[in-house]
């Protein structure tokens, strides 16, 4: 809980890197990528779909400055869930997307490096390139006789320095994110979230660690304060008197104070609500390093146990 909490950040902006990546996209912004996307002003939280498909899901805690890996991996995982639950794609649920791989790809392979000795941290566009060009791995899945756990500091540090082992790249390449596009404001966030596309948010805005409450008695509000060079996932939007985004952190159940009971238990103390105007400032308009994700290449459809069900 909050008393044991030691925050880890790790967003290391690279405006030049982001500009170069965005200019390489065929459809760089929501206007091009989703010109027909619209939304009704109804509250949406994509984490509901995640816990429906994966009832044991709990948000973990990033062990080093790997927030970019964590924010983007959760975004890919939620995208996979939305592909299944919202778009009815016939694929199996992948499980937890391995943060160390997304982080490693974003720091080394996506930048064309052999090694990255430059401390911790990464940036949004590098992770966007990582998941679209190199793909994703899944935590605790057997890869050629080895498994790789989530929240392993040594693994994240090693892959953040050396990149993901070459032998794992073919596995990762099977599960890429098809498309990313720049999100420039809260309106873009609403279009993406309400249509089942999570948003990986990179920003330097900080918050208090204790939730506030609104006039209707709902808790879970984050108050802007200080500076966090941090990557998180926007998993929901709410409207009504105070339009806001629900921002999912990677510090486990880190927040204290009154929660919003409308969120699933797994997210009540690991995600907070941020006012729409604050979200606009966090994303930064044309200087954004925040992206919506679309089209997870999921897992093969599940198999039938048999055809005759023990009748014979």
């Amino acid at each position, binding site marked *: 809980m909050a008393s044991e909490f030691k925050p880890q950040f790790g967003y290391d902006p690279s405006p030049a890197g982001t500009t170069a990546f965005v200019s390489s996209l065929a459809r760089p912004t929501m206007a091009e990528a989703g010109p027909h996307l619209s939304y009704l002003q109804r509250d949406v939280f994509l984490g509901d779909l995640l816990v429906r498909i994966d009832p044991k899901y709990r948000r973990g805690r990033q062990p080093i400055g790997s927030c970019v890996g964590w924010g983007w991996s959760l975004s890919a995982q939620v995208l996979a869930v939305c592909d299944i639950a919202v778009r009815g794609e016939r694929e199996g649920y992948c499980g937890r997307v391995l943060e160390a791989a997304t982080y490693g790809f974003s720091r080394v392979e996506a930048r064309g490096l052999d090694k990255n000795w430059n401390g911790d941290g990464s940036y949004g566009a590098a992770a966007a390139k990582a998941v679209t060009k190199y793909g994703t791995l899944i935590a605790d899945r057997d890869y050629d006789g080895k498994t790789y756990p989530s929240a392993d500091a040594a693994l994240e540090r090693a892959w953040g320095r050396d990149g993901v082992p070459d032998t794992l790249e073919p596995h990762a390449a099977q599960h890429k994110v098809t498309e990313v596009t720049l999100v420039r404001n809260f309106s873009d966030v609403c279009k993406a979230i309400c249509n089942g596309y999570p948003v990986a948010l990179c920003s330097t805005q900080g918050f208090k660690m204790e939730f506030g409450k609104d006039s209707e008695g709902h808790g879970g509000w984050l108050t802007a304060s200080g500076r966090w060079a941090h990557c998180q996932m926007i998993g929901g939007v709410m409207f009504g008197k105070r339009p806001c985004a629900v921002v999912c952190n990677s510090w486990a159940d880190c927040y204290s104070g009154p929660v919003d009971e409308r969120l699933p238990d797994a997210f009540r103390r690991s995600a907070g609500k941020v006012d729409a105007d604050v979200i606009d400032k966090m994303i930064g308009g044309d200087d954004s390093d925040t992206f919506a994700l679309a089209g997870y290449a999921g897992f093969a459809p599940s198999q*039938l146990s048999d*055809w005759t069900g023990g*009748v*014979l």
Partner: protein
Amino acid sequence: MNANAARLSAAVVLVILAFAVPRQPNRAAAVVSPIPAPAATLLDKVRPVADALAAATPSERAVWAEVWEKVARTVLAESASKEPLFPDAKTLRAFTVASLEIGWRRVAGVSPARFPDLKSAAEAFLADPDVMGLDDVRLDDAARRKFSEAAHALAYAGIGRG
């Protein structure tokens, strides 16, 4: 002709008649199948099912064939439906299990493992990737036709000609 000679003559006549009268046909062999033979590749694959049913009674064979024939016809008719009941392999499998449960187990009263090799033979046939496979895939008209042909083949195997 004395009485003994008359009796002997009568016996000889009866023996001759007994062999001369056409024999009653074997009941199982007399079942005439309205089910056309499946393609040669399916026929080959479904033969273990026919072997597994070697000890089945004519009525059991008839029920087996009827269950699979009805399944085949129902699934094939789906292609004309705007809202298919079986959009994917999982729902088709549920229908198959229910049909077998009702027809084979409840109506014919055949208990599980009554034919020890039938389960493995039928499973192997349907799970063959060239027949249906075990992937839970979305069904289109081609997949429904494929299943219908497989069900026909199973019906055909049941009436002893697989």
